[in-house]
């Protein structure tokens, strides 16, 4: 048994400890943390090479690259954790270009004192999410900051993917008359996370919707290659995301409140907390905007996929120099759906 194994080989010994500054020093402790925790879970030939970068073959074509830092609190929530979230979130941002995700990288900022057992659980969850999605994590980095200079763990994932020939999806391509589709109920992720916040005390059985949407996107793109816009309404929820698209495309958007799927738990929790579900984060939902003549075809393709059974047409793009997002309320009146003001819910993703 080598020295290294004496220290790290035994699962119990490792998992009982905590992150120390030395784990970030770039010496043997760093190398061993990588070997015995990260590589053990994320096991794949590219990562196993142990270089500071991963090398792989690519074919000619259009490629996409995206990155997201994850700073969610709490780290573990019903339906997921920061690890699975970091994998899903970045796969989704790749997929939102209509692309097929190829590889991920992951960079960790660990706070001194963070339990190694929790890190182990998080990395195992990333590994499971990455395997389930078929998108390996091929390179990574780990840094450690002093106690009180971080918050357990932050994970930045970056993803690359390839865009199928003929697909051109971008937030600036919505046109007046286009139809806005949503893949399912809103607010599940945010409410699931909030329900575990220390200072909020309510109980619900809602689970985060955190999921990798690339297989859904693949089928949508196959059915309607002319999809104009795809976007996952994460931070800022449906409201912020539609405003982004409206501004990028310089169109208005008109929603039908009654058409927007929302679960009773989410409605109730929002009433309780004074929140508007339109601004609650989602991590397994997408917005699609397509030409009107393709809307039904796209809707059918979506509903055929398990992650979009409740897909719905929720509105349409309009001509509007103000690029306002408006909504006909269930009540029969009209309101704006502005950007989120203030920040009642920090650290949701």
């Amino acid at each position, binding site marked *: 048994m080598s020295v290294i194994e004496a220290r790290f080989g035994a699962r119990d010994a490792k998992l009982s400890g905590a992150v120390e500054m030395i784990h970030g020093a770039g010496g043997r402790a760093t190398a061993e943390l990588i070997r015995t925790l990260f590589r053990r879970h994320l096991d794949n030939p590219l990562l196993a090479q142990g270089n500071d970068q991963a090398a792989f073959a690519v074919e000619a074509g259009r490629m996409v690259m995206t990155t997201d830092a994850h700073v969610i609190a709490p780290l573990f929530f019903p339906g997921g954790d920061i690890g699975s979230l970091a994998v899903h979130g970045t796969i989704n941002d790749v997929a939102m270009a209509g692309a097929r995700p190829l590889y991920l990288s992951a960079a960790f900022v660990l706070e001194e004192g963070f339990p190694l057992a929790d890190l182990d659980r998080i990395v195992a969850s990333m590994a499971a999410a990455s395997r389930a999605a078929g998108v390996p994590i091929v390179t990574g980095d780990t840094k450690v900051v002093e106690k009180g200079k971080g918050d357990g763990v932050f994970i930045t994932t970056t993803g690359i993917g390839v865009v199928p020939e003929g697909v051109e999806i971008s937030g600036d391509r919505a046109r007046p008359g286009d139809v806005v589709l949503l893949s399912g109920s809103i607010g599940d992720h945010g409410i699931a996370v909030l329900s575990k916040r220390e*200072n*909020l005390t309510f109980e619900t059985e809602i689970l985060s919707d955190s999921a990798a949407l690339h297989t859904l996107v693949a089928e949508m793109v196959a059915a309607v290659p002319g999809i104009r816009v795809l976007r996952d309404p994460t931070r800022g929820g449906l409201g912020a995301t539609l405003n982004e698209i409206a501004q990028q495309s310089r169109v208005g958007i008109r929603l039908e409140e009654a058409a927007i799927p929302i679960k*009773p738990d989410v*409605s*109730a929790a929002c*009433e309780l*907390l*004074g929140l508007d579900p339109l601004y609650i984060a989602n991590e397994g939902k997408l917005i699609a905007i397509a030409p009107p003549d393709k809307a039904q075809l796209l809707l059918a393709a979506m509903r055929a996929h398990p992650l979009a059974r409740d897909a719905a047409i929720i509105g349409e793009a309009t001509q509007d120099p*103000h690029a*306002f997002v*408006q909504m*006909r*309320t*269930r*009540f*029969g*009146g*009209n*309101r*704006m759906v*502005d*950007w989120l*003001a*203030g920040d*009642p819910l920090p650290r949701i993703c």
Partner: protein
Amino acid sequence: MKFVDEFRDQALAMGLAAAIAREAVPARRYSIMEFCGGHTHAIFRYGVHDLMPENVGFVHGPGCPVCVLPIGRIDNALELAEEHGVILCSYGDMLRVPASKRRSLLKAKAEGADVRMVYSVDDALRIARGNPSREVVFFAIGFETTTPPTAVALRTAKAEGLKNFSVFCNHVLTPAALNHLLTAAGLDVDAFIGPSHVSSVIGSRPYEYFTETFHRPVVIAGFEPLDVMQAALMAIRQLNEGRAEVENQYIRVVTRDGNRKARTIVDEVFERREGFEWRGLGAVPDSALRIRDSYAAFDAEKRFSIVTRSAPDAKSCECAEILRGAKKPVDCKLFGKGCTPDSPVGSCMVSSEGACAAYWTYGRFRQEAA
């Protein structure tokens, strides 16, 4: 959700809209002030405007506890957090309200002050129990609805002998504000939609004085959009019939006497202040509460020798006018220019119950379309 969804029903809304349209006499204008920000919020969020005839207009009143707190008191809260180094606990919206010198509790927090948003005064108690070596101050604001919970918390603190908990009391009284509005010159309002939750505590009786004295209808109404519409209809009927009575639309919660137990607890802990400054209304006599001497140990004003200086509102901000129904948000030249919910100049742009915020967030398209 029971007792919620029913009161947001579209079919009933159409019916009420038709009734109002039929009963509002075309030749006359109905100017109805909704006292509470809760009503304002419902009107904008559900688009109640779209169901009302042209000649029935809503005027937004001063019933937003965040909006009416004068800058000097927020400066005091900042002083507690920054100079006295206390853990300052506050309801959410309060954090973003601009104080003197472009400061706010949120900015103080960003700079390291220990300011915490709580959902209930009980959270502040919990924080005090969990941090025995720190002073914890609950920044208490609100009308007669938040006052009873603060009173309960003070009784709990006293019973437990909590040494590090105190309350910076800014509770204000609805009837005094209404009185002030009605006695002031130039109020162009025909009828009032009265508070819902406030009335669940104080009952409908306190408004009887106003209808008798000032001869304007008061209809106490719930905060759901159908409640507001029905109350409007009731007010229009009173006006059409020349009546000026206290009517209760919110019978499912409000009684003539309100919640006697809550009122008793409040009386044990609080007493009236001689006067208190309201943003928009100025000094209003008998309009606020202070902590009684028997609870002096828990009074942050005493514990930290707080002196409130009157501080001017931001220049050009029309909150004062808006809060007494004299102007509308769009009349302010900063509205949507220098002042938005992201970067508010006045308090009315902060609270979700503030008229400027409601108008900007939900109703802006009306202006642009016009």
